[in-house]
């Protein structure tokens, strides 16, 4: 499989300079960078617009949940039992989607749960992109024994299943916060980015402009970050965007298993776990956090699809 990844990445890479070429030909109108070109392409896609709206809404939930509900998501009132049927006409009220097993408002918890998911998703993606991207760039640029060491080490970590490894790491934390989950997922998740980046850097490294920069006496740092990085980053961005939804799902799965986030933190995974005990009497207690989680993951996968199509037309 590593061979396949390397093969597809260069194919995509070749397509990008070509696309840039056509953009440059239309110079008479307005020169566009790859990023700008992708942005113009993206704005016209309904998939991108829908997912962007959903993500903006989610980020709003994460930043300012109190804008959407005035109910305390942690206030459990046992008079509001889960057998009290939800009142679907009480918009934005505490009982809109009913109450969970401890009498807490499902609607409020649904809104407040966004924060943990969004923070884990974004931080893990940023972490693996920086860590994996850096390692991949070093391996691809220097080649030789550096490449051998980095690549073999990547293979070793890649062999540990993500969920299993995360369970082992998180089990070591007595108190688990969002940051412990981020830590576990970054430690195990960077391998994919390293592989993509390495393949991408190896192709870009052979370009004429890199040779030219070297001939002009540019330093290693300058070549790496000014010349290679901007041209090699596209496949990494594509993989990172698609992976983001997966990290959110992994966090929920870990919390569901009881080894992810812990109770004062509100997580859809924890709520799905507690809802399974009352699934026959109160299916809505499962439906809302689960639905929210699915919509979130869906939004990020759709965004990743759209970004891939815009940045990497060959991979379509």
């Amino acid at each position, binding site marked *: *499989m590593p061979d396949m990844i390397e093969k597809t990445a260069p194919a995509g890479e070749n397509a990008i300079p070509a696309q840039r070429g056509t953009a440059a030909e239309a110079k008479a109108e307005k020169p566009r960078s790859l990023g700008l070109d992708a942005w113009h392409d993206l704005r016209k896609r309904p998939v991108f617009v829908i997912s962007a709206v959903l993500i903006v809404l989610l980020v709003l939930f994460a930043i300012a949940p109190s804008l959407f509900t005035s109910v305390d998501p942690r206030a459990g009132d046992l008079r509001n039992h889960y057998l009290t049927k939800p009142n679907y006409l009480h918009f934005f009220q505490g009982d809109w989607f009913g109450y969970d097993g401890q009498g807490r408002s499902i609607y409020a918890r649904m809104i407040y749960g966004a924060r943990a998911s969004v923070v884990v998703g974004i931080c893990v993606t940023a972490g693996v992109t920086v860590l994996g991207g850096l390692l991949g760039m070093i391996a691809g640029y220097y080649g030789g024994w550096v490449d051998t060491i980095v690549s073999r080490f990547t293979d070793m970590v890649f062999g540990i299943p993500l969920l299993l490894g995360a369970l082992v790491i998180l089990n070591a934390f007595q108190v688990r916060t969002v940051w412990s989950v981020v830590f576990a997922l970054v430690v195990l998740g960077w391998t994919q980015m390293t592989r993509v980046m390495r393949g991408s850097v190896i192709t870009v490294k052979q370009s004429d402009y890199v040779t030219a920069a070297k001939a002009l006496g540019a330093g290693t740092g300058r070549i790496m970050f000014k010349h290679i990085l901007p041209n090699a980053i596209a496949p990494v961005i594509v993989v990172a965007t698609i992976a983001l939804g997966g990290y959110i799902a992994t966090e929920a799965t870990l919390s569901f298993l009881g080894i992810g986030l812990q109770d004062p933190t509100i997580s859809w995974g924890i709520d799905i776990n507690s809802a399974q005990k009352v699934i026959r009497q109160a299916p809505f207690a499962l439906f809302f956090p689960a639905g929210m989680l699915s919509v979130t993951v869906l939004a990020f996968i759709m965004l990743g699809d759209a970004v891939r199509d815009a940045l990497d037309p060959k991979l379509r």
Partner: protein
Amino acid sequence: MGRYVARRLLQMIPVFLGTVTIIFFMTRMLPGDPAAAMWGDKAADPAQLAAFKHQMGLDVSKWQQYLNYMGDLFTGDFGTTMGGRKVTDVIGEAFPVTIQLALLAFAFELVVGVAIGLFAGLRRGKAFDKSTLVLTLLLISIPVPVLGFIFQNVFAIQLGWVKPTVQAQHMTFDQLILPAVVLGSISLAYVARLTRTSIAENLKADYMRTAVAKGLPRRKVIGTHLLRNSMIPVVTFLGTDLGALMGGAIVTEGIFNVQGVGNALYHAIGRSEGATVSGFVVVLVLVFLFASLLVDLLYAVLDPRIRYA
């Protein structure tokens, strides 16, 4: 071919040793004293505890434990659990269950996924294709715990077609169908999408026009020429997936009470049983490495242009 396989096998050795080393230290770093935990809430008698630690080989340094572990590993001794069972017995009990479940899930995603992908790819842009794209996207975005509970509730509890959980002592094959469907359904969505893209792309290939022009029946054009050439990305995915399926589905096995690898691992991690966890991982890494070798060898079978010298 022979030399290629030999080279790949040699390359596997450092990766295997490295992964086992990483997982050894990860599991041994777990906090809490698993030996002391054998006494429950009561404080252990120091002399008894020391004797027990000595018996388990836990009274030497971590590095010495590591050397002992690796040495034992190559003689086929995976160590014992804190309860005194051989880890190989625990593995031998859990793996057959997971293998049955994994193969069932694998067959499901392969057959249904490729069939859906084939029909969607052949009718690109039509209603079936579009609904396939939407439905598979939805399936991918539903997390496993949610999917598991939905399927359990609908098919087992409301419709009553199957038993909601697997009986631990009297597991029958039909009880595994529902967990296998849940386990396979997300991969099924990927398989269907990959097949669809690949089929739609290869439909335009020159060899397809040749096959049609020389008057081959449609069945043959699609079966031998189109499908075979379109399977390479699908096989790549399925190979990694088989490795992942063997790792046991911690969530699915938990929901449906399947006493397989996932369940055993989950409980072993919870009890800080380092030897059990690393024992399972040793087997899993081997499965994973061989699955990826198998995939690379299958490329040559599917596409004769690919040769391994």
